[in-house]
């Protein structure tokens, strides 16, 4: 059998090095002992899961830990998120979620929003793979829901 050649260049947009790095070595895995907010995101169709524990000091996020199981995109996205929201207020965290969601839906973000998303900008390549957008959004929308719930309590 002649061995076929594979051109995965299209896929490189999806699996950027930084994403694979977060997937292989996810950040903030050490569970924080006490939390003020527990965030869970589950995709029942595919079984991807993320769990985050968030410690607040006042209105701002002082510590985050995350655990999960799933595809590279869902886990890398959650790992990046756990880095980015540290030190942010809940409102800022929610804005990050809204910006990230807009980016996934193909909307242009202003420069400030892009800066705030930091490394997570690498996930913008996911939008070319519509079926995987929900993987990228899993942790972020779970965070958005949790902030809303926390504020209403």
């Amino acid at each position, binding site marked *: *059998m002649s*061995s*076929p050649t*594979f051109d*995965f260049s*299209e*896929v490189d947009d*999806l*699996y950027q090095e930084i994403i*694979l790095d977060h997937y292989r070595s996810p950040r903030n895995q050490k569970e924080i002992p006490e939390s003020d907010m527990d965030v869970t995101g589950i995709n029942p*169709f*595919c*079984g*991807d*899961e993320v769990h985050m524990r968030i410690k607040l000091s006042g209105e701002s996020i002082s510590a985050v830990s995350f655990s999960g*199981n*799933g*595809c*590279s*995109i869902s886990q890398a996205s959650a790992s990046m998120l756990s880095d980015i929201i540290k030190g942010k207020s809940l409102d800022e965290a929610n804005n990050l979620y809204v910006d990230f969601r807009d980016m996934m839906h193909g909307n242009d973000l202003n420069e400030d929003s892009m800066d705030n998303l930091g490394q997570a900008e690498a996930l913008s390549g996911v939008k070319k*793979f519509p*079926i*995987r957008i929900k*993987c990228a959004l899993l942790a972020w929308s779970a965070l958005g829901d949790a902030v809303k719930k926390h504020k209403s309590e």
Partner: protein
Amino acid sequence: MLDVNHIRKDFPILSRTIYGKPLVYLDNAATSQKPTSVIQSLVDYYESYNSNIHRGVHTLSMEATDRHEDARSKCTRFIGAKEDKSLIMVRNTTEAINLVAQTWGKHNISAGDEILTTHMEHHSNLVPWQKLAEQNGASLQFIELDEDGMLNLSNIDDLITERTKLLALTHMSNVLGTINPVKELTAVAHKMGAKVLIDGAQSVPHMKVDVTDLDCDFFAFSGHKMLAPTGIGVLYVKPEILESMEPFLFGGDMVSQVWDDTATWNDLPWKFEAGTPNIADLIGLGAAIDYLESLGMDQVREHEMALTGYALEQFDRLNDIKVFGPKDLSKRGGVISFHSDDVHPHDMGTMLDREGIAIRTGHHCAMPLTRKLSVVATARASFYIYNTEEEVDKLTAAIRATLDYFAK
């Protein structure tokens, strides 16, 4: 031997390309592709004799009624049932099992009774029993699996007792490919007075099935996995049980006489077919059966066994891949679920899609089983009559390339 090149010409979709590559369709356990003859049977119905059945004396209605009932007879013959009235037409396997749970089950399973099932069931042969058990105060028991993904029957005599009212199990697993000894288990269950329901969603499309020989009480399958359109499925019930079962849905067509405050039921099987049925798709299922019978189910099985054997050999060479299910080809169908510690199934699925290769990834509607396998999800390739060794080669080469890509 199947003439696969010839067969492939009957399936228009197989000439499609995906990202410029020829489609390699390996998601047959989810749903099969459809041959021209099936597609044409739908066009013929809608173009030449579309009308409601059982209701008119006009020519179209008579033609449609004849073709509809003729298709039912084909199903009867195909699964070795004795009478057409044993076959109830439903949407799919899921609806068939719910029908049994909420009619026969509701009236025959009570507090303290047990429903025995297995750890390899599709959600559609588990959740309806969970619900019934909750409604009626019964409990669920499970037959465990061994390392090879076969049923562990060493303690079967402890599991099937006089408390067991129903054994509900799959003929063939949609994840492991395991073909279960349903005939032997049916005999054991009957000895203890339990009834038996077999989920045939994965067996009927791929091998000769004879419900009379199996002696099961209920048997369910879906048309869409066996070349037929979506939206048509079949429930077989042993005649003597069907006679005593209460209707499932109420309304038109299922009645004999109706007064202001009461009604009597139509004859079997129409008593269980309320409302206008899926006429077109049952006719399509008839055409699908004609197609499969023209090939011969023994040939279909032989082709898939050979292809599965070839694929398992190729997978063996991949090293970094774990393959689930029995090693003995005579005990498994054409379904191969596999797992890599380094590449998540969804990532695998996305990569293979870029090569035009369609596989299924996820928990395959069998979450308890996926948990037992100690994985979150698996990737699954499943074969049918039109698949070739060349396609298996493409699959294994693309898996190799994906493993390398993620290891870079």
